[in-house]
């Protein structure tokens, strides 16, 4: 007998599996972790929305049996804000690519964080514009190649977790498509919090980033993660030199500031009592 995993429970039937992602694309791994985290929540799936922008990563909602919304490039958080305000009880999950989240969508990102809008963000960060074929994204590391940075990227890159932290998110964590248990765990923890939360899921794109930067094999991308991402507390102890080549993961922020939705519902309450 063929077994099913929890993941399969939430995949849409007859929706053209296998999915469109390239062989070995990390996006599938993240989607699996996301689904396991949702499953752990034990919520009614009618009360879950998964919202995305445009990009390879943003194809996620297509496959999932929830209320799903595939919006315009970079604007997912703004759409999600509307959904959340209309349905304050709904678990509103927003999945975005790095370009989607902090490239074209950067303003919505920092404002949703500032408002502490009660949205659960998972950024699939492959350090590149995958869907359009490998142009530099705001997280492409300096010196790395992209189809619009053939001579090596001269721009600096955003640290998505740091941006989320400094603009006010309640919960911020990072794991990779290799560190799949941590990833699931962080996503799950973020779902249990109010306010704006961000989990950065570092992932590998063999087809574009990989091809241009000697990580063409899916396994190579994950090897890189395995060897170079270390827990934050260990990373903190590294020398400055080592810090240049290793990357921290773990939980960066875990606070409980009041979210926008709570505040607004309180406002309604008080205005109505004032009547």
């Amino acid at each position, binding site marked *: 007998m063929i077994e099913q995993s929890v993941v399969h429970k939430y995949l*849409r039937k007859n*929706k*053209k599996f296998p999915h469109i992602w390239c062989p070995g694309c990390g996006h599938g791994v993240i989607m699996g972790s996301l689904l396991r985290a949702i499953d752990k929540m034990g919520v009614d*799936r*009618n*009360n879950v*929305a998964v*919202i995305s922008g*445009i990009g390879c990563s943003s194809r996620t*909602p*297509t496959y999932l*049996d*929830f*209320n*799903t*919304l*595939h*919006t*315009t490039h970079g*604007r997912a958080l*703004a*759409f*999600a*804000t*509307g*959904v*959340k*305000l*209309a*349905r304050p009880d*709904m678990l509103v999950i927003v999945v975005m690519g790095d370009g989607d989240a902090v490239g074209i969508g950067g*303003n*919505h990102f920092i*404002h949703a964080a500032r408002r502490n809008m009660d949205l659960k963000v998972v950024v699939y960060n492959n350090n590149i514009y995958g869907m359009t074929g490998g142009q530099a994204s705001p997280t492409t590391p300096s010196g790395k190649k992209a189809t619009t940075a053939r001579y090596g990227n001269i721009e600096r890159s955003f640290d998505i977790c740091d941006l989320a932290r400094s603009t006010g998110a309640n919960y911020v964590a990072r794991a990779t498509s290799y560190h799949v248990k941590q990833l699931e765990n962080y996503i799950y923890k973020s779902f249990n919090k109010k306010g704006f939360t961000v989990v950065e899921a570092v992932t590998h794109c063999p087809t574009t980033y990989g091809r241009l930067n000697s990580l063409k094999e899916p396994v190579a991308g994950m090897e890189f993660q395995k060897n170079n991402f270390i827990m934050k507390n260990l990373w903190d102890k590294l020398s400055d030199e080592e810090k240049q080549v290793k990357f921290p993961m773990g939980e960066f922020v875990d606070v409980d500031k009041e979210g926008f939705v709570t505040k*607004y519902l309180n*406002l*309604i309450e008080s*205005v*109505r009592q004032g*009547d």
Partner: protein
Amino acid sequence: MIKLLQGNEACAYAALAAGVRFFAGYPITPSTEIAEIMSMELPKRGGKFIQMEDELASMAAIIGGSLGGLKSMTATSGPGLSLMQENIGYASITETPTLIVNVQRGGPSTGLPTMPSQSDIMAAKWGSHGDHPIIVTYPHTVPEIYNETIRSVYLSEKYRVPVILLLDEVIGHMREKIEIPDENTIEKFDRKVPTVPNDWFFPFEGNLEGVPPFASFGEGYRYHVTGLVHDVDGFPTSKHSQIERFMNRLIGKIDNNVNDILKWEEYNMEDAEYAILAAGCIARTARDTIKVLREKGIKIGLIRPVTIWPFMEQPLINATKKIKKLFVPELNLGMLSLEANRVLKGKLEVCPYNKINGEIIYPSELEKFIEEEI
């Protein structure tokens, strides 16, 4: 209750009366009053107001709010309308009811922020890339703003289409007497919701009129919404036959229901030999002008589109059958007159009168122009 209200105020109160419970917006002259009133009034009714970071986000948020089940709107002016265009197209293709109020000011660009203009008529229809269905309405008095706001919300919900309610700086900012109906007497309309079990629900399968029932998020119909061309099941398709079926239904919704959507008024047209075609504040000028011209013995009437898009093709043809000349005064370089020319196919002469200096057209100048042309 009789009140003296600004056009923008009337618009906001009408939206509330029509059941709008979500507003997302970004301030811009001359539309800001609408947002300001909504921020005060919505919480009283349990509704939600949010000032977003820009107009792109505002349009996105109201689509989200609408999908979440709330009647939703935004308000803006020219530059904001341009910024909303991408997401207006998204509302079109996903068939999400949304009301966009656009209070016109002088363009292009920042242009003349506090001066009247009617130069967004074309942008309202054609601004978003690609063929997309849209309805545009344009009242001319404060009481009509009230009614048209309600009708626009209604059309938007009925046809699952973004509706742009055009106002202009003159009618948006002037105060006028209005008898406000009791909110309870206002016709209630609710979205048509699916009546089949979950598994049988095809979210984008049109009924006879072409409009699918609308399941709000969270109601148990877990379907997919995307700005990609999609099949009846909501999933992206690249099959040519499915694409064609989808596009035809999308556009057909409007094309097949023009009679229901179109609204226009005729004044003094019974015996008219000449006619004016005008909308918004310029229709007010035209009506005054007609009074004077008629006193002088000139048989002239007014045709006033209230629904601007779809354009009143057949009604205009019918109304002008006995007309010798059609005058089209506008605060732009000729937008309604382009349409009139197209529709009338040379059957009668179309005389545009275009004013773009930031001022309304005065009855005296229109009178002079018409007298010279006759």
